[in-house]
């Protein structure tokens, strides 16, 4: 049974503190500059408490849990965002 929730990062708010990667290494890795790489897809039910904890721990409130799906929506809004 899927949680129907996915991780979303507001990159403008993220300052690369990295607490999310410490708390949720299964879904968050840090790139070479210290910023999160999120794994796609819905969060597993077993990882949900850890995901919530990671969201709470973010010092800048950049990490959020949103309702999936998003990929299709993101693609559409991406196109619309062009100059």
């Amino acid at each position, binding site marked *: 049974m899927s949680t129907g929730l996915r991780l979303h990062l507001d990159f403008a708010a993220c300052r690369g503190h990295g607490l999310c990667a410490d708390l949720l290494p299964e879904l968050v890795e840090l790139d070479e500059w210290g*910023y999160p790489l999120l794994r796609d897809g819905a969060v597993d039910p077993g990882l949900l408490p850890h995901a919530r904890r990671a969201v709470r721990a973010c010092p800048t409130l950049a990490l959020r849990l*949103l309702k999936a799906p998003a990929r299709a929506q993101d693609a559409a809004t991406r*196109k619309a965002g062009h100059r």
Partner: protein
Amino acid sequence: MTGAHRGRPRPRADGDGRPAAHPARLTAGWRQARRVSLHEHLDIHGPLPQPGYRRPGWLADAVAQAGLTGRGGAGFPTGTKLRAVASGRRPAVVVANGMESEPASAKDHALLARAPHLVLDGATLAAQAVGADVIHLCLPRTKPELVDQVRDSIADRQHSGAGDTPIEVQEVPHHYVSSEETSLVRWLNGGEARPSGSLERPFERGVRRRPTLVDNVETLAHIALIARFGPAWFRQAGLPDSPGTMLATVSGAVASPGIYEIAAGTPITDLLACAGAGQDVAAVLIGGYFGTWHELRAVAALPLSAGGLRPVGASPGAGVLVALPEGACGLAETARVLGYLAGQSAGQCGPCVFGLPAIAEDFAQLASGRPNGDVLERLDRRLGVLTGRGACRHPDGAVRLAASALTAFAADARRHASRMPCAAARRGSANGGFLAIPRPWAEGEWE
């Protein structure tokens, strides 16, 4: 003709019988260095259609049937956007995007300078269609003469009583990312002209939290003609999945660089012939600085349309085509552009702030033939992690450009990486480049 052509391409006079140039629609009545006056505009195109007896959604329906897509680069269906904004509960706002921060594009500037009334008509009609009570025409702060000309044109209209939605000319800071629609909305709301990472799109909540229609000025010009002549007329040009005409800016190794109005879906080789390209064109940049490089032989026969270019991973973008001759170094050109794009970051998101300069540096090393370590491996790794990790698509565009360069110039890339750069790269940028890099402008000025 000789060597590189720097700075803005000169706008071209209208049709002189070359096969690819379509009978003029937007470019009707264009003459060198002259603006089409209101009087001439009405003569050529006819009066501004009044809603009259037609029901409120008539224009959105017509535009949807016509299949018009955004001419600013994203190619989003315009009719859908009009309907989405019109369905908002609060009075809407129209933003006409004349910023054209893409250095290789000059069509919007030409359109505003030569045929402003088409744009103003389109904006007025769009405002009526979405129920907007104000139009913000956004122009770059670095072009005061253009701003004055447009203001004159607006004044002319007021005196002749064509449309009563107020049009406010806004002089916006002119950074590369400032022309992005969320940047304009943010600036109009009193903030900086930087993209916002908000999950709410402008068509839902934009200027003053009202539904906001942001359209490129060329798109609005097409709306002005669709309103007069109907969707069937619009579809007489172009392809079924890419109808109508478009303005393309051709530059680089061509005899007559400039703006051409072509039917959407014109084969690339035809457009190049139109602009007087020689036999020595080896590669083309399609779309803009956020577009893609291709070997000419891979794309020559392809139509300049979204559907036609998708198989090779390209898109018409802002209608930009740059021709690179045989002796030039695509890697060096790309390195210079990446350096420019890295400097144009809004500075809000870590991956862009750190990643773009990193790949620009890698590309500079590659271009000069003096790489540190395995630069191709590094680029491969970094290009894989920069897409989709920012408040806007600026890093995505840079990554797209870089990745396409590594594919189109793969043989060169291998040689450069083995410390055997090509002759052009060794010559350096003595004679400039084919891709113009704008002079740095007011870096700290974002408001």
